[in-house]
């Protein structure tokens, strides 16, 4: 390929990469953790989520809750996983829904959730890239970054193509450390390219689907997009009919589901307009044999048990819906069970490494070297700032997430809004790390911050040891391994800052006082 094209795309790769790398690091690290958000939640609040002996049936729970809170009939969800409970929200975006669960004597306890919502927290940080924004705005920013990141992926591939065969399997361990980092960056980037393209393009869609739909509505659908959408979701029979009608029992409904969709494992039933002729129930569940969006569902009439819609039921979707579902599944890793979950976890961490190494390469290619007996040149301001931001943001995110996980466990039952507390602790650690890095420079801050990240992560298995209980020992094992890796890196980094070459942004000797 012509050298001027390569040069142009090197510039494109540098700019798109350096502007989005840090946000994407956070999104990928938190995203890797979301693969295990259900076990994380079980780990943090074993008492809340342990299945309790069933004192009431689902039908009894619904009847008794509605007797106390008749307004709930409009919309509520019966959960079949974990302890039997009903939940409902005041609004769609309500973060702490109401929960009704039977006490041991069969009376109903109603309260706002005290759940740490650790799954929610990790997910929010993933979607917003750790920016302190509401989820919708944050997802738009992440979507914009994902657009630039797509361009970074294509340009990276174009740069690599001419020397692909020569460079691909080369991992040149020599004195040239920059070459080694570049080889590692290329290797990880190329082998996880399909994963990264899927993530980048789907994140663009998640952030900007409203803009895309609005534009298509004007340009393609002649303003009739809503009609087309509505035609894809057939209305329930008797919609709007408020006359009283008794719905089928939970067991009967589940028997209907088993006939329509054998192999589908229902996890929750969302009722609408309960007690009226128009009542519907949306049976959500899982079927690991298919590519589905996290959860698939079947829509039934609650009174007759008739099937209203199977467009989101795994294996019974139309062609178009199943293609789109596969995009969601490829982003969420919601197929193939644990094997895929571990694979996505590894690919997510590898992605975080890709962005981290990209920043290191940026800094290294701007390095001012010491020549002969000259005085050691200081590194440029932009290199020092970028190094400090990289260290502060990446390590702040790692330490902050570990601290939030530990906090969720210890604050369980202490505060009602454990959610807010865990998120607050994430940001306190994150901002602290960023402050230390900017104040003292990357060289001085890196080792202590790695130590902090190791400590916070080690606190996960230590908590389980102290409480002498762990609902998910696997989490403790993985966290212990992570803590050891971080501790080793902390030692090596400290040695480099003290004894490494002085003409480097990572040397404590020459950069300490200049940031």
């Amino acid at each position, binding site marked *: 390929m012509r050298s001027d094209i390569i040069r*142009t795309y090197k510039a494109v790769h540098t700019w798109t990469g350096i502007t989005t790398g840090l946000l994407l690091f956070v999104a990928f690290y938190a995203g890797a953790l979301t693969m295990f958000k259900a076990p994380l939640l079980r780990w943090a609040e074993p008492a809340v989520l342990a299945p309790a002996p069933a004192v009431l049936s689902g039908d009894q729970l619904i009847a008794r809750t509605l007797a106390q809170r008749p307004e709930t009939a409009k919309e509520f969800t019966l959960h079949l996983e974990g302890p039997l409970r009903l939940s409902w929200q005041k609004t769609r975006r309500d973060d702490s829904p109401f929960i009704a669960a039977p006490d041991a004597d069969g009376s109903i306890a109603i309260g706002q959730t005290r759940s740490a919502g650790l799954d929610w927290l990790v997910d929010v940080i993933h979607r917003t890239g750790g920016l302190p924004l509401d989820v919708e705005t944050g997802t738009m920013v992440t979507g914009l970054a994902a657009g630039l990141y797509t*361009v970074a992926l*294509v340009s990276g591939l174009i740069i690599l193509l001419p020397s692909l065969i020569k460079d691909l399997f080369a991992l040149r361990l020599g004195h040239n450390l920059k070459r080694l980092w570049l080889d590692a960056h290329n290797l990880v980037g190329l082998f996880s390219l399909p994963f990264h393209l899927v993530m980048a*393009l789907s994140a663009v869609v998640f952030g900007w689907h409203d803009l895309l*739909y609005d*534009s298509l509505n004007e340009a*393609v659908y002649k303003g009739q997009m809503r009609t087309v959408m509505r035609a*894809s979701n057939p209305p329930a029979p008797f919609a709007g009919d408020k006359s009283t009608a008794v719905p089928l029992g939970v067991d009967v409904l589940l028997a209907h589901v088993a006939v329509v969709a054998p192999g589908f494992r229902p996890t929750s039933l969302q009722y609408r307009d309960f007690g009226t002729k128009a009542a519907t129930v949306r049976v959500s569940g899982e079927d690991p044999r298919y590519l589905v969006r996290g959860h698939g569902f079947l829509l039934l009439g609650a009174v007759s048990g008739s099937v209203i819609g199977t467009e989101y039921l795994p294996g019974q979707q139309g062609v178009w819906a199943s293609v*789109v579902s596969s995009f969601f599944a490829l982003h969420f890793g919601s197929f193939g069970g644990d094997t895929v979950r571990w694979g996505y976890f590894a690919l997510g961490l590898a992605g975080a490494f890709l962005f981290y190494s990209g920043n290191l390469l940026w800094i290294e290619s701007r390095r001012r070297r010491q020549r002969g007996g000259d005085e050691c040149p200081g590194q440029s301001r932009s290199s020092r700032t970028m190094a400090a931001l990289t260290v502060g943001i990446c390590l702040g995110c790692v330490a902050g997430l570990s601290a939030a996980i530990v906090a969720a466990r210890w604050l369980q039952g202490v505060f009602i809004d454990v959610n807010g507390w865990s998120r607050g602790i994430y940001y306190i650690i994150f901002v602290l790390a960023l402050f230390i890095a900017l104040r003292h420079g990357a060289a001085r801050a890196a080792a202590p911050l790695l130590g902090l990240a190791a400590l916070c992560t080690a606190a996960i298995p230590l908590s389980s040891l102290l409480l002498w209980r762990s609902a998910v020992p696997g989490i403790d094992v993985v966290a212990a391994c992570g803590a050891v890796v971080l501790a080793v890196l902390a030692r090596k980094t400290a040695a480099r800052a003290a004894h490494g070459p002085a003409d480097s942004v990572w040397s404590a000797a020459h950069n300490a006082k200049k940031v």
Partner: protein
Amino acid sequence: MKTDWWSKSLAGIVAGFTLALALAGLFAWAGPGGINAVNKYQLIMWMVAPLWLSAVSLVFLFPSGCHAWAWLGGANVCAWIALVLTRSWLG
């Protein structure tokens, strides 16, 4: 080869977007199932992102900003004429 950062970037972002809309629209109307196929609109929306970003990514291959605008603009004119014709013919 000229760099023309602003001109090429804008060509990719703006003309690339309108081209992606028109191509997705052509597939919506003339592709299998026609415009009203159940839930096809979702895939059409998903199609726009890769088409658009392909344009943004590859626009820097053009020798100059003028070339980028000329080619993408020409492709836009063709695609939009085809879309308008298909839309009025099938709609």
